[in-house]
């Protein structure tokens, strides 16, 4: 059973590899936009360091935040683009008439996302370190926890976006791309949570990424590392992942009940 699971999920990963290998148009976006972001924010942080009081270093606070945020967005887009490949190539009927389960399908999307988001992460880390002198040692061991929470949350958002498209049709693709921008004010990427109005702080506490960026600023300010907030962020991220996987399964079942899966090809054409 385990071998079957590995074979089916690796089939989706292999499909993604084939698509990337033969298409520069797919490879370049894996790192181009995040690289531009790092360059842009690299220079902004240098400028801020130059004009502000010398005691605060903006590079790890802002450039590091941009890097972590872009990593989460790349993870999300890794899921959604792998899913959209099936929408664009009208492949649902072939895929879902095969013995593959929804869990195997989602796992295949996650594997694809790990592979593609790693490319972006490596490029971002290389640029931020080599060009702008960002040292990841300043975050210490907490960096692994930050990346894990953002990875889980990015996967949740990707599955949520895919469920939207499966439910509302190919045109709903345009709902997916602004998702990170939509939640970024509540994720407190660049400012402390306390900056937000009281009612927004409550909403921000529902966003796992806000715990990461609060924790990151805490580490940089040499405050004692509070494990509880980050644990809450991790639990929230894991909970959202389970909820979104359930939501996708529910949408899939609805699509099978109503005939949407079978009709999806025709609607994509139209």
């Amino acid at each position, binding site marked *: 059973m385990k071998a*079957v699971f590995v*074979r*089916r999920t*690796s*089939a*989706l990963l*292999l*499909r993604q590899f*084939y*698509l990337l290998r*033969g*298409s520069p148009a797919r490879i370049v976006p894996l790192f181009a936009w995040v690289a531009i972001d790092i360059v842009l924010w690299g220079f902004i942080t240098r400028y801020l360091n130059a004009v502000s009081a010398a005691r605060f270093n903006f590079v790890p606070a802002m450039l590091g935040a941009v890097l972590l945020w872009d990593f989460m967005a790349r993870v999300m887009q890794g899921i959604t683009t792998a899913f959209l*490949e099936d929408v*664009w*190539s*009208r*492949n*649902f*009927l*072939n*895929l*879902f*008439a*095969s*013995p*593959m*389960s929804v869990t195997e399908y989602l796992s295949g999307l996650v594997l694809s996302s790990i592979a593609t988001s790693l490319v972006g992460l490596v490029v971002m880390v290389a640029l931020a370190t080599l060009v702008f002198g960002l040292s990841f040692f300043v975050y210490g061991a907490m960096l692994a926890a930050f990346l894990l929470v953002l990875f889980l949350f990015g996967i949740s958002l990707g599955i949520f976006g895919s469920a939207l498209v499966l439910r509302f049709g190919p045109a709903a693709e345009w709902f997916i791309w602004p998702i990170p921008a939509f939640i970024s004010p509540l994720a407190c990427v660049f400012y402390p949570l306390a900056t937000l109005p009281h009612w927004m702080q409550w909403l921000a506490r529902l966003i796992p990424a806000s715990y990461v960026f609060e924790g990151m600023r805490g580490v940089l300010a040499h405050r004692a590392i509070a494990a509880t907030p980050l644990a809450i962020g991790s639990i929230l991220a894991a909970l959202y992942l389970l909820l979104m996987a359930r939501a996708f399964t529910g949408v899939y*079942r609805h699509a*099978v*009940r*109503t*005939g949407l*899966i*079978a009709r999806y*090809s*025709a609607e994509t054409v139209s």
Partner: protein
Amino acid sequence: MQEMTENANASILSVTELRKRYGETVAVDGVSFAVGMHEILGLLGPNGAGKTTTINMILGVLEPTSGKIIIDGCDLARRRRQALERTNFAAVYAPLPGNLTVGQNLRVFGLLYGVKRLNERIDGVLNEYDLVRFRDTKCGVLSSGEQTRVALAKAMLNQPRLLLLDEPTASLDPATAREIRATIRDFAAKCDVGVLWTSHNMIEVAEVCHRVLFLSRGRILLEGDPRRLPAEHEHETLEDLFVTVAREPLTIRRTEEE
């Protein structure tokens, strides 16, 4: 043909009281039939009769409102994975992704279907469907006839026990269509497989199918040997009978009433 009739008792597909309702609209209304081993069963009917809805339910991509589908002893509702491992299909409306090559598509679907000795099997279907020269060609740039052959190659990859073919020769030239028909007849005769075939080409149906079902408004109107049915219903050809079923279904005595 005699051997086929005897083996047909060993049912590969059994459909019982299958029904699909969309709100007030009944697309398939209590259809029951079986496909035996080595049998090619033709599912005929005008557009909107319920053929594709029936096929989609057998493929597990459309949930029936009620009824039961058993594929090679596996209840599709309870043992979906096992049932679909024994099934495959080709349909004009489900081409393989055009952005992958023929070889890449066959490899990906071979893994999804759990095909053993995949390299060997891919070589086999590429040879069988005259696709060797297209192994590294993207499916999207192939002609519709070549794409149909790729879809058939994918449908044969896992050597299914149940093969569903929805108008498999619709976009093929007559010579290729004849070859494909011969290949599938040969496949059905030699392997332990049952084939459900839809087509609007009545000459093809008479040539290929051992038995046909005429669907009209979601119900089975007629069933029988495509070579004898026209005479039994006072028509000259299967096509004449098809036209009557499509235009005046009430003038046909239903199979269940006989």
